[in-house]
């Protein structure tokens, strides 16, 4: 538990959604998770585009970031599923393929970096779902969420391909559910739980709109009232929030489930003041949720 991690917040969270970083840092502070800042890291780089454009560019830029952590003597902690996909995949590829590691190091050496292939990469869900951290979470709860029904979104890049990500069961993951349940809330089961958010299907916007509409419609029609959909990636979080609003307008359906990032929900349960979280900073306003939390 004393272990410190090289903290890799990525681009989207620190530059576009710093309120999510704030929530995560508050949670880490309360639970005593040690983070060491990384200096000079670049974009992870973004997995879908870079991998598609040129595998070597993707791996070499990723390896440069890994090399910075290696120099610090620390493993990496990410709070974005995209960063997790890139850094974890690159770390596994280079650990398993000595020839490829050599080829990448030829490039890195020209800018005075080396990577030996030893850094491990974690998503914060992996840390907080471990028994000792769950105990710590339970004993730190200030506002139990036992009056809430929460829907969990895992997303694709956290869990698949499982032979590389090694995160959880690829068809029946439970790590996020377990964290939420330890905060006191009930997690709901639903058919579209493991569907993609569509953010990365970037050529056709209607793909994402349809996926979000289907999931949100199902959640709104469930017997139990869902208080929030929880995601663990900035792309999924933004995608559901924005596209839910668009789907509601286009279809005339009442789609009003607020989308929160896991660290925000954890921060609420661990007693971070609501005014210190930017909960209104989204398209679908969590009015009902805030009302529940303040009465």
């Amino acid at each position, binding site marked *: 538990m004393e272990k410190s991690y090289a903290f890799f917040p990525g*681009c*989207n969270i*620190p*530059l*576009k959604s*710093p*309120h999510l*970083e*704030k929530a995560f*840092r508050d949670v880490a502070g309360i639970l005593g998770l040690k983070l060491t*800042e990384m*200096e*000079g*890291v*670049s*974009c992870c*780089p*973004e*997995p*879908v*585009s*870079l*991998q*598609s*454009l*040129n*595998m*070597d*560019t993707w791996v*070499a*830029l990723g390896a*440069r970031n890994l090399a910075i952590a290696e120099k610090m003597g620390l493993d990496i902690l990410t709070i974005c599923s995209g960063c997790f996909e890139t850094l974890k995949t690159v770390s596994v*590829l280079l650990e398993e*393929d000595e020839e*490829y590691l050599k080829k990448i190091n030829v*490039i890195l050496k*020209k*800018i005075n*970096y080396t990577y030996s292939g030893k850094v491990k990469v974690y998503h914060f869900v992996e840390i907080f779902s471990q028994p000792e951290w769950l105990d710590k979470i339970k004993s730190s709860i200030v506002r139990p969420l036992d009056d809430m029904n929460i829907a969990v979104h895992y997303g*694709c*890049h956290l869990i*698949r*391909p*499982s032979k590389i990500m090694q995160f959880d069961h*690829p*068809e029946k993951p439970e790590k996020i559910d377990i964290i939420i349940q330890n905060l006191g809330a009930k997690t709901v089961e639903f058919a579209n739980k493991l*569907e*993609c958010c*569509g*953010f*990365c*299907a*970037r*050529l*056709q916007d*209607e*793909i994402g709109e349809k*996926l979000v509409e289907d999931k949100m419609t199902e959640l709104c029609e469930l017997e139990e009232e869902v208080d929030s959909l929880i995601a663990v990636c900035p792309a999924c979080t933004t995608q559901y929030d924005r596209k839910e609003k668009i789907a509601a307008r286009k279809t005339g359906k009442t789609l009003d489930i607020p989308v929160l990032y896991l660290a925000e929900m954890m921060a609420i349960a661990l007693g971070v003041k609501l005014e210190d979280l930017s909960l209104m900073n989204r398209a679908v306003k969590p009015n009902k949720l805030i009302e529940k939390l303040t009465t």
Partner: protein
Amino acid sequence: MTEMVKKNASDLDTKFRYEISEKVGAKSLLKCIQCGVCSSGCTVTEYVDMQPHRVVASCLLGLRDEVLSSQAIWTCSLCHRCTERCPKNVDYSFILALLRNMAVKEGTVPKEYSSTVVTIYNNGFVVPYTGGLKDNIDRRRNKMGLPQIVPPDLEEIRFIIEETGLGELAKNKEDK
């Protein structure tokens, strides 16, 4: 959906399958049994001009141009469900990324993808972080009590992008 392709055997690129399979991580292409599990679980299966199992079949048959110019290879969201579920362990989503790499080399790349490398080349991040934009971001972070961002040395990032062959793509777009 897919239109029938009529081609003479002599027009097929019979080496295409090996051009793909010899790349790191792509050997599994040759194991496909055309069961269709990939296509049945595919997130974008209703939206593509060629479903995953058809893309693989076309690679194996040597329909090089049809594959590399298809809309299907760029529509995929890389959700990796195909790779996860394939009973023969064909790593389709990884192979698809390699097909995109090949298409890029031939000059076919949608701007939704190429713009990412342009942004990284210019900022080190996938989000613009220069001038007034940077000031706004820094101010907002400061207000929240978040630490100062220490950006990468852009020369290093640009070197990697150029050295691995994306320099032209990153710079060409910069001028537009």
